[in-house]
């Protein structure tokens, strides 16, 4: 493979090539821009901030670490000193942070280069990347369809080949759902395993930085570089993160939960088919299916939209036009400055959620909404604990449907909220979830499944993902064996 084709490589292979000297740092970074981005980016619009000069400097300053020369597209809500960080919002227009998020700093320490900032729903509030002040991102497998959200930019960019790894954030499924829609792996780690320092907060008790990649092994590679305690984030878990170096260890002797009651109705048959296919792969490799009844997702949706919006209403209070970002030009006093700046700076979905959250925390409503939601959250966490007492991990849809059309759900917020019905639970429970791409549907759209496990089960989930990645072939194929990625082709 020529250096110009470096974009096709996995992150692991690319870093090997860079360290061996067969691929230059500069080529490793630019290959994705010259080939696939030239072809896809004008239509897909996955990237909102990019700068060849910054990339050149990044490549020059890179090192021979585990991610040597690996370009990474980082969601626009992760602070980067060398690119603006705007959360897809007008209110942060032009804002450039004076510091790197911990995960960004760790990427750089591992030799990776930030290749740009990925598009997103404003402040990560959305499931389709349509609510961005820069306009929507489109799904490279079907430009009329959404890439999922809110981390649609990094998901689409990894899918079309800009970079082998992307970073997103997952508050209710914002990594796992777009990963499913774009046919890539998407990991939401255990709460507290990846530092949130420098991740612009949406729902602090739910937010986790997540990883996109085209290969299971690359998820493990990035996880190993990023996970672990951070003194700057008091909610990170103490002690070292679980080791994921045996990501291809297989699933022999493991039991996976099969909560079929969840997809009895309201789930696309293509999604159910993917679940059956994934289950068959796992069984072929020695895992046992354990049917179980699970709490319907509607409870999680209601709980989530109270907790997340309550926290968001407070987290987003700091965007007031006083210190940074957008300030409404016509304001005579501080009240007018606040209301005009926030009314003009935030989009409608963000305003809707701030109002919802403010209401849920208000005097007289706090007990009925916020406290009840907290109790429900405890109940949901226990539900998962009970399930994991009976199985090692669970197989679940990542989303109830395949990618939907642009504009299909923007008029109906509730319908949009329901597209996260299978992903919200993991955020409420603080457990890891991993989207595993399977194949393309008859219509050429990615099909995927989601694996959920107990806290710190990332090594186990990666083992199961690898089994599905190699279609249930025995893992003696070896870790160097890479299945051909189902690249999008323009129709």
């Amino acid at each position: 493979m020529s250096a110009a084709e470096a974009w096709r490589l996995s992150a692991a292979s690319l870093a090997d090539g860079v360290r061996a000297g067969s691929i230059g740092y500069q080529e490793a970074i630019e290959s994705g821009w010259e080939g696939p981005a030239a072809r896809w980016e004008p239509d897909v619009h996955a990237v909102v901030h990019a700068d060849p000069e910054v990339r050149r400097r990044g490549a020059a300053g890179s090192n021979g670490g585990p991610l040597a020369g690996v370009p990474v597209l980082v969601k626009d809500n992760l602070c980067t000193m060398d690119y603006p960080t705007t959360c897809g919002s007008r209110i942060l227009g032009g804002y450039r942070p004076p510091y790197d998020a911990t995960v960004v700093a760790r990427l750089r320490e591992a030799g990776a280069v930030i290749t740009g900032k990925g598009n997103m729903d404003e402040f990560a509030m959305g499931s389709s990347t349509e609510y961005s002040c820069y306009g929507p991102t489109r799904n490279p497998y079907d430009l009329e369809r959404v890439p999922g959200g809110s981390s649609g930019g990094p998901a689409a960019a990894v899918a079309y080949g800009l970079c082998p790894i992307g970073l997103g954030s997952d508050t209710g499924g914002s990594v796992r759902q777009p990963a499913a829609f774009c046919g890539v792996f998407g990991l939401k780690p255990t709460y507290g395993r990846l530092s949130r320092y420098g991740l612009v907060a949406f729902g602090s008790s739910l937010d986790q930085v997540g990883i996109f990649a085209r290969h299971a092994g690359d998820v493990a590679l990035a996880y190993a570089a990023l996970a672990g305690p951070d003194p700057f984030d008091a909610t990170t878990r103490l002690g070292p993160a679980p080791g994921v170096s045996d990501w291809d260890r297989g699933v022999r002797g493991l039991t996976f939960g099969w909560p079929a009651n969840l997809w009895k109705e309201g789930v696309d048959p293509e999604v159910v088919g993917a679940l059956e296919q994934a289950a068959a792969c796992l069984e072929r490799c020695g895992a046992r299916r354990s049917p179980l009844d699970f709490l319907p997702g509607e409870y999680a949706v209601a709980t989530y939209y109270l907790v997340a919006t309550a926290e968001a209403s407070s987290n987003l209070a700091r965007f007031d036009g006083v210190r940074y970002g957008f300030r409404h030009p016509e304001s005579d006093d501080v009240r007018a400055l606040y209301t005009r700046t926030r009314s003009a700076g935030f989009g409608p979905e963000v305003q809707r959620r701030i109002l919802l959250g403010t209401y849920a925390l208000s005097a007289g409503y706090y007990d009925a909404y916020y406290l009840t939601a907290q109790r429900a959250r405890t109940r949901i966490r226990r539900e998962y604990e009970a399930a994991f007492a009976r199985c090692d991990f669970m197989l679940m849809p990542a989303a109830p449907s395949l990618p939907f059309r642009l504009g299909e759900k923007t008029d109906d917020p509730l319908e949009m909220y329901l597209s996260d019905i299978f992903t919200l639970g993991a955020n409420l429970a603080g457990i890891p979830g991993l989207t595993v791409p399977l194949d393309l549907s008859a219509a050429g759209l990615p099909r995927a499944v989601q694996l959920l496990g107990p806290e710190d089960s990332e090594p186990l989930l990666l083992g199961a993902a690898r089994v599905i990645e190699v279609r249930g072939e025995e893992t003696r194929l070896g870790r160097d064996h890479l299945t051909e990625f189902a690249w999008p082709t323009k129709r």
Partner: protein
Amino acid sequence: MAYEAVIGLECHIQLGTRSKMFCGCPAEFGAEPNSNVCPVCLGLPGALPRANRAAIDAAIRLGLALGSEIRGESVFARKNYFYPDMPKNYQITQYERPLCEGGALPVTVDGEERSFALVRVHAEEDTGKSFHPERHGDRRVSRVDFNRAGVPLLELVTRPVFRAPVECGAFLTALRRLVRWLGISGGDMEKGQLRCDANVSLRPAGSEPLGTKTEIKNLNSIGGVMKGLAAEIERQRRVLEQGGAIEQATLLYDADREVLAVMRSKESAHDYRYFPEPDLPVLVVDEAWLAEARRRLPELPWTRAARFASEYGLPPYDAGVLTEQRDLADYYEACAREVDEKLASNWLMTEVLRVLKDRGWTLAEWSERVPPGRLVELLKKVAAKELPGPLAKQVFGWMVEEPGGTGELLDRHGVRVQATPEELRPLVRAVLAENPGPVRQYLGGKSATLGFLVGQVMKKSGGQAAPQVVQELLREELEGARRGC
């Protein structure tokens, strides 16, 4: 109708920790505006707080001193409201599960020992400071300095236990002494290190239910607290006497003009939408931490005052004065171990405190010049009557200015105490010869006359005779005369 005031205080104590409450920025005062700031205390997007252990430790020690219950698990909370000097537009504080609950502060009010019950003590962060308005051309602008944003504060809330402004003044004086005693805060109200808001309502004397209360803010001196409260009590009394009703409101007290102004009425009251701070884990204070804090807790001022009274036999007034500052109490004790306790107390309370007041010195500055050992040497001579009183005070004066022991100072200033019988006997005999009347009285059994005769000898010596020796010689001579009769 007679009315009774019911007052509760909410005090904020700025801690003297090196760094801020939730980040590593220096908490110092007086730096260039907006120089002690970082992403955390500026509330930049993505920044997260981390709790300052030293500040929590200070809260624990104050709680222990007040006899509060220290919670093993307490919870930080967000208090949400918009203000330009508050970077996140919420303050991280504690709400439903504070670190310290209950407890009381012992206070002496008009010589009477009282104890004022508390609701809670917890740690939180300070806001920045606004400066406004200023003119920029034809525009009015405000500026904000965030150096103070995130500086650790302790909030202390009392029960509505006060009935008069003077009690509040005494409480604040005692609280200021305590926080200084514990070394957790400068406690200076003028510098904003100790701040106080007061809730006050009136009710018919003897009745139980509380009346409608108002809150007074901006009380930035102990005198201001008492004056502001007195003014508000008077205002409420007039309204009630005219048959009116008190409206719930927040008032500002202008100490310069001594007037109250309404800051906001009930209708515009904030809904702070408190909820647990998701960025900080539950604050766990385990037994080991508590035990260590307890171990490092000094003997408390009121305990020490009681001990001074019982151990050294001091009157309550002396014990109170000497325990106003911890280093003064330490200094006193260093002296009292060596010389007469009451003598040491008298000298400290009159001579030493006068010098401190006149020169504006701290006790540390004094102690640097006159360590306890130096004063003790002088006091020992006074106690042994080897130095006449006026001369001792003169030596004390030299001590403040110059180095050297008592003997050295006397030599340097050419003063020689006449202390040998050989030197003094001629003076004594002369005085006896010149005062036949008093001598007769003495010999007739009126021994108090001896004091007069001592004074005459001292006078004759120009104040340089050692009184103890003079007294012995006089006795000796007089007894000789008695036998000779």
